[in-house]
């Protein structure tokens, strides 16, 4: 450009573009709703509740929220100058990620529903409000809850969360496959040795004969060459579902941390547990197992290996009923406490207990109102409404008769009973737990693929996690309980 006139024309051109653009931006900004306005001082007190639940689980939560809101409205009508608390439930995917970003950005919800595995890291990093005083002030005490779930919400002697929907794990078996294998369909294996023996009877291969005919043989069929056989049904598979490889250590009497918070991954009982994992791969053959596992459909579908009869016995939790009900309603199934090693009868009712929790993030705008809602959620009425809707049992000690008789889950009493077991397993309260779990998963995978011996795999986990725990100690006050 050599003349000011040209420059002017250029700028005019740019302006011609920019003005309508600015208009659009302004319009959209006007249409868009801005950040949450500060509390007006009159009218209802609005709080935001983030939950990860969708589908019928989300609807159960919605019902609780609606009942609470209605009760608050009623209180406002009868008491003058009372500002009712109104809860807005937002269904959030990937809640941990979103919650973290929101807390860091100074814009958290007032109440959030999280999973246990994120609770302790959050507490260690100071992301949550200490609820001890509020809980004591509301008259809620340890005696109101099944002990394991109350303990899970406690860390460093303070209370940080209130439980919502609990779960425990147990042995599930397919009754039809039991009768086809000649076993009594109503009697589950009591010991691990029995489990292994019955798993052999429930394992079936499709064997190709010399003339090309196919037939079904039961047992591990180790004498038949690999090329002639194909796995079609398995009695038991530790790798299915494979969500808690660390749990097997507890079933054998081992543990992951000692009293002082040191890592004990390489303990002899843990090695024994992983030897047991490897034994299934040895009996069935790694290649066959991999091919069989890769043919499993999506867990949440009728092609779930347990639902479609590919796996006869499985360790699963109280939620399995929902999947059976949705995808395989005709399945005849049984539930019993998971078997124990014959030499250790004291491990009889080992189970993994877990619970979803509600917390108040740091920086929440209305902590008092948030707690008032959490208190309703933990009342007999609110909790049973929620847990009935989720088809799970309630973490409260008191159970109303209406809850039991209306409950659709046929084995809910057993799952609740297991939560009282002396050998119940709760997730270790360590900031390094996520890393520990990943390392155990990887170790179990390597052991089951027979690529590494159990001792070596667990020694590797021990080394890595000791370093991680050391690092974590340096940066926070975490002390895991075994």
């Amino acid at each position, binding site marked *: *450009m*050599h003349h000011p006139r040209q*420059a002017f024309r*250029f700028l005019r051109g*740019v302006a011609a573009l920019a003005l309508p653009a600015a208009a659009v931006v302004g319009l959209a900004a006007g249409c868009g709703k801005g950040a949450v306005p500060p509390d007006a001082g009159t009218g209802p007190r609005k709080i935001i509740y983030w939950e990860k639940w969708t589908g019928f689980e989300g609807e159960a939560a919605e019902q609780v929220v609606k009942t609470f809101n209605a009760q608050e409205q009623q209180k406002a009508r009868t008491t003058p100058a009372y500002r009712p608390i109104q809860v807005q439930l937002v269904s959030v995917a990937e809640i*941990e*990620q979103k919650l*973290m*970003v929101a*807390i*860091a950005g100074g814009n958290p919800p007032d109440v959030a529903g999280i999973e246990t595995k994120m609770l302790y*890291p*959050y507490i260690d*990093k*100071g*992301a949550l409000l200490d609820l001890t005083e509020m809980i004591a002030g509301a008259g809620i005490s340890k005696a109101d809850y099944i002990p394991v779930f109350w303990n899970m919400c406690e860390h460093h002697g303070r209370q940080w969360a209130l439980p919502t929907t609990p779960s425990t794990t147990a042995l599930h078996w397919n009754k039809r496959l039991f009768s086809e294998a000649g076993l009594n369909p109503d009697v589950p294996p009591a010991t691990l040795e029995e489990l292994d023996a019955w798993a052999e009877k429930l394992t079936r291969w499709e064997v190709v004969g010399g003339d090309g005919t196919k037939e079904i043989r039961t047992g591990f069929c180790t004498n038949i060459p690999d090329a002639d056989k*194909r796995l079609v049904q398995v009695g038991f598979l530790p790798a299915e579902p494979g969500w808690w490889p660390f749990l097997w250590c507890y079933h054998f009497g081992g543990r992951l941390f000692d009293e002082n918070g040191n890592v004990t991954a390489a303990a002899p009982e843990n090695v024994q547990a992983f030897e047991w994992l490897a034994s299934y791969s040895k009996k069935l053959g790694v*290649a066959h197992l*991999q*091919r*069989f*596992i*890769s*043919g*499993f*459909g*999506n867990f949440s579908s009728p092609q779930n290996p347990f639902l479609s009869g590919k796996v006869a016995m499985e360790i699963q939790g109280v939620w399995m009923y929902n999947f059976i009900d949705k995808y395989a309603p005709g399945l005849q199934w049984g539930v019993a406490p998971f078997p124990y090693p014959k030499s250790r009868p004291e491990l009889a009712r080992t189970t993994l207990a877990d619970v979803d929790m509600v917390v108040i993030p*740091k920086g929440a705008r209305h902590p008092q109102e948030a707690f008032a809602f959490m208190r309703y959620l933990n009342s007999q009425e609110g909790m049973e409404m929620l847990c009935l809707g989720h088809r799970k049992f309630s973490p409260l000690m008191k159970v109303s008769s209406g809850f039991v008789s209306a409950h659709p889950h046929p084995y809910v009493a057993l799952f609740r009973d297991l939560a009282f077991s002396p050998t119940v397993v709760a997730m270790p309260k360590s*900031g*390094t737990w*996520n*890393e520990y779990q*990943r390392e155990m*998963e*990887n170790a179990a*995978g*390597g052991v089951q*693929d027979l*690529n590494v011996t159990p001792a070596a795999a667990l020694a590797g986990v021990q080394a890595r996690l000791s370093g991680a725990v050391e690092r974590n100690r340096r*940066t926070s006050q975490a002390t895991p309980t075994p």
Partner: protein
Amino acid sequence: MKRRDLVGLLFCAPWLLGFLVFMLLPMGAALYYSFCDYSIVQAPAFIGLANYRELLADALFWRSLYNTLYFAAGAVLLGLLTSLVLALLLNCRVRGLAFYRTVFFLPSLMPVVAGSILWMWMYAGDGGIINTALKAVGLPGPAWLADPRFAKPALILMSMWGAGHAMVILLAGLQDIPTALYEAAVIDGAGWWQRLRHVTVPLVTPVILFNLVMGLIVSLQVFTQAFIMTGASGAPERATLFYVLRLYQVAFRDLRMGYGCAMAWILFLVILGLTALLIRFSGKWVQYER
């Protein structure tokens, strides 16, 4: 400053503004965090080079880097080949051209969730579609996503369907070649292969370079497919533990965003280096103005 510099700067003003507001601050913050112990929900605490030192000694870091480079090499080459073949096929005048063009682009339109479910279903070991097809041809079908040796090739094959994007860009470039050049070649007696080698491909090399660079940058940051299909664990046996997946694990699951930012800046340097190499050596085979 010369008038021309000012004009150039003015044209680039929208990007500069966006960069200053939306990029510089977050990138600078990420750089600062890489020297800190930052758990997202707590304020960052400066620890110097500790993150970088830990990173270089971490076996998982190197594993994820290897996995990512393996994947990128496979995906970029396969993608280039597929998109080039498709674009060249579509550049000829065949009946039903519009239909084919849409068909080849369709898989790129699917939402990621539906696409991943489809692929997991197709890769099922016994009775899955891919293995059934392989069996029909007499080849043994591996356990794809359950076998550590075949998991990465499985994901690389998946990226083939995403070739629609690169194909569309190549097509736009192919359409830009003036017919006059083709006519001149025909007059000179060139057959279709010679036309391809001497007219078509050389003139579309800037676009090919673009696709290569973009493909490299994007595939080195592969994340979503692996996240949905393996649940952020990198199963089986860490075969699909890609770099950004590992970053996500460390930053959001272990609450160590500082370490994650250190990983991000190393990735940045790796991508920058590889891209610079690619562009430096592009002068040999790319032709710009005619």
